[in-house]
């Protein structure tokens, strides 16, 4: 299969840089997720890799060959679009086989590959239907199937699950991940949902304003974010940020504490007042406010007896404080050896 390597890739639109000097390695056979807030350039990056947008600067190496200015089809990549983009006037079978038909693949071969993919994705009964007669989830599978049939070097996914309802989304996450692992094909997946990124990725790329903020495995990014933005973007509920005297105590401009790292203690270091409690059943989220107005969210057990308006105090689990300097970057932990 293939590595995809981007070197210094940039793309400008009229008034801003959608991608700014991107250097990125997308490892072979792994599931890489591009994640970030709206407008961060993740979809642009995907489209640059696909060849649907032209690169302004930089090199795009697929299997070691610079394809920055090659037509999409020659790159050997397949894309699953957000709106599925199925051909409405063709049956599912014709949709799946279109790319092969365009290449003048012999009919028998087309039929074989289409049947194979249909079986893999449980589409066999739907082969003669038109897209309008399919449900959202079915259309999604046809879109994936269309990409699969081409036996591409890599899969590109553009937020394919955002048009599905919540339960279907969770189910499809597993399906896509399972498929990718079984086939071992390189996958690049774009989403704005950090939860999706965490559960699906081998490798997460966090983007903001056209630049890469951090690249790493999910747990790595979760535990060791390199700056305030990544720390706040990954993790739900969001990391707690405290400034002022709280941060000063740790020699930082801002400190970050994940909600699960706050423990209720009678003599805790952070005294607060309980403002709201969210009961999730499996756990509770306490929204509290410190004396100087800073807000905190803590994850606690449902067994804890707390009431709104009550005074409460938290301790931070040792070693779980993220320290950030004034520039937003994390202050590396000082080792004890001097």
């Amino acid at each position, binding site marked *: 299969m293939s590595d995809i390597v981007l070197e210094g890739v940039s793309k400008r*639109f*009229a008034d801003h840089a959608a991608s700014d000097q991107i250097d990125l390695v997308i490892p072979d056979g792994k599931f890489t997720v591009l994640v970030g807030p709206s407008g961060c350039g993740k979809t642009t990056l995907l489209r640059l890799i696909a*060849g*649907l*947008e*032209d690169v302004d600067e930089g090199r795009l190496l697929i299997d070691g060959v610079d394809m920055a200015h090659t037509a*999409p089809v020659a790159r050997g990549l397949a894309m699953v679009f957000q709106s599925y983009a199925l051909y409405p006037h063709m049956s599912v079978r014709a949709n799946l086989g279109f790319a092969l038909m365009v290449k003048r693949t012999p009919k028998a071969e087309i039929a074989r590959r289409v049947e194979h993919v249909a079986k893999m994705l449980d589409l066999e009964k739907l082969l003669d239907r038109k897209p309008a007669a399919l449900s959202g989830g079915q259309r999604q599978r046809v879109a994936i199937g269309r990409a699969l049939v081409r036996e591409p070097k890599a899969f590109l996914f553009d937020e394919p699950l955002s048009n599905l309802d919540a339960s279907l989304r969770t189910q499809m996450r597993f399906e896509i991940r399972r498929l990718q692992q079984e086939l071992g094909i390189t996958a690049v997946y774009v989403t704005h949902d950090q939860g999706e990124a965490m559960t699906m990725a081998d490798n997460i790329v966090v983007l903001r304003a056209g630049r890469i903020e951090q690249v790493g495995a999910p747990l790595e990014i979760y535990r060791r974010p390199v700056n305030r933005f990544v720390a706040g973007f990954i993790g739900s509920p969001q990391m707690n940020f405290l400034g002022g005297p709280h941060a000063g105590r740790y020699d930082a401009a801002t400190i970050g504490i994940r909600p699960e790292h706050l423990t209720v203690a009678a003599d805790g270091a952070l005294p607060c007042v309980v403002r709201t409690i969210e009961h999730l059943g499996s756990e509770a989220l306490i929204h509290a406010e410190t004396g100087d107005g800073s807000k905190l969210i803590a994850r606690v057990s449902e067994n804890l007896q707390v009431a709104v308006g009550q005074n409460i105090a938290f301790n931070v689990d040792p070693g779980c404080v993220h320290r950030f300097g004034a520039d937003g970057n994390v202050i590396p932990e000082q080792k004890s050896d001097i």
Partner: protein
Amino acid sequence: MSISTVPTGSGRSYLRLQARILMAPAILLLVVCAILPLLPTIYYSLIDYRLLASTSHDFVGAANYGRLITDPGFLPAIGNTLMLNGLVLTISILVGLGMAMLIDRVIVGRGLLRLLVISPFFVMPPVAALIWKNLLMQPVAGLFAWVSSVFGAGAVDWFSTLPLVSISLIVAWQWVPFACLVLLTSLQSFDREQREAAELDGASSWAIFRYLTLPHLARPIAIVVMIETIFLLSLFAEIYVTTGGGRTTNNLAFLIYSQVMLQYDIGVASAAGVVAVIFANILALVMVRLVGRSLEA
């Protein structure tokens, strides 16, 4: 009136040249047939050019325009053009709106209703004019005469007493389907939930119409006004076939036609042509502004 947002380029810059080639023939034809002839028109309006008299094609400056404006038929023609425009717009939009709102509430037989209402649009103008003038409006044997006699009223001699109104009726009849369909389509995209929320809030039907429906319809009405105005300025056949022109029913287009075809005075006719073009642009702009502003108030 909106154009869908033109998308930015997307990886197909090599198509730019082909795009230009593809557009060229259409643009060329329009330039040759629509723009190019304007030049001679302006030129002729400035010279002495009469087909019957063997004149010397001298440059006479604004003399033609002078003769045009002082021609006793000129101001009436302008007035008639405006009247026609106003009458046709008013009738066709009012009737069209009423019809659209009625059809909007009907569920059964909507297809047949549409069929009935749409028919006048596809009738060619000479046919429409002759049917109305003879079978309907003729004061002795026409259908309207019979209908008014049933109600005990006398027959109206349409073309003798109200020629311009008669023509306006005929033209408005042909445009009612267009106005009705445009407004009906727009009504059907009108969010029902908005209407229901207003009803729950206790708004009367009239209030809902005035504050919710009408603003929603402002844009389609403006479109109807603009499109009808564009076509109305060249109104010709209905006048030609019913009254053959004349002081009371000449519009600008017919005035020009009669100057050219009947009096062979190219110079003056060209001047009128230039005036017509300027007039058309002003009229269209004014109409849209007027309608747009008053409805959104």
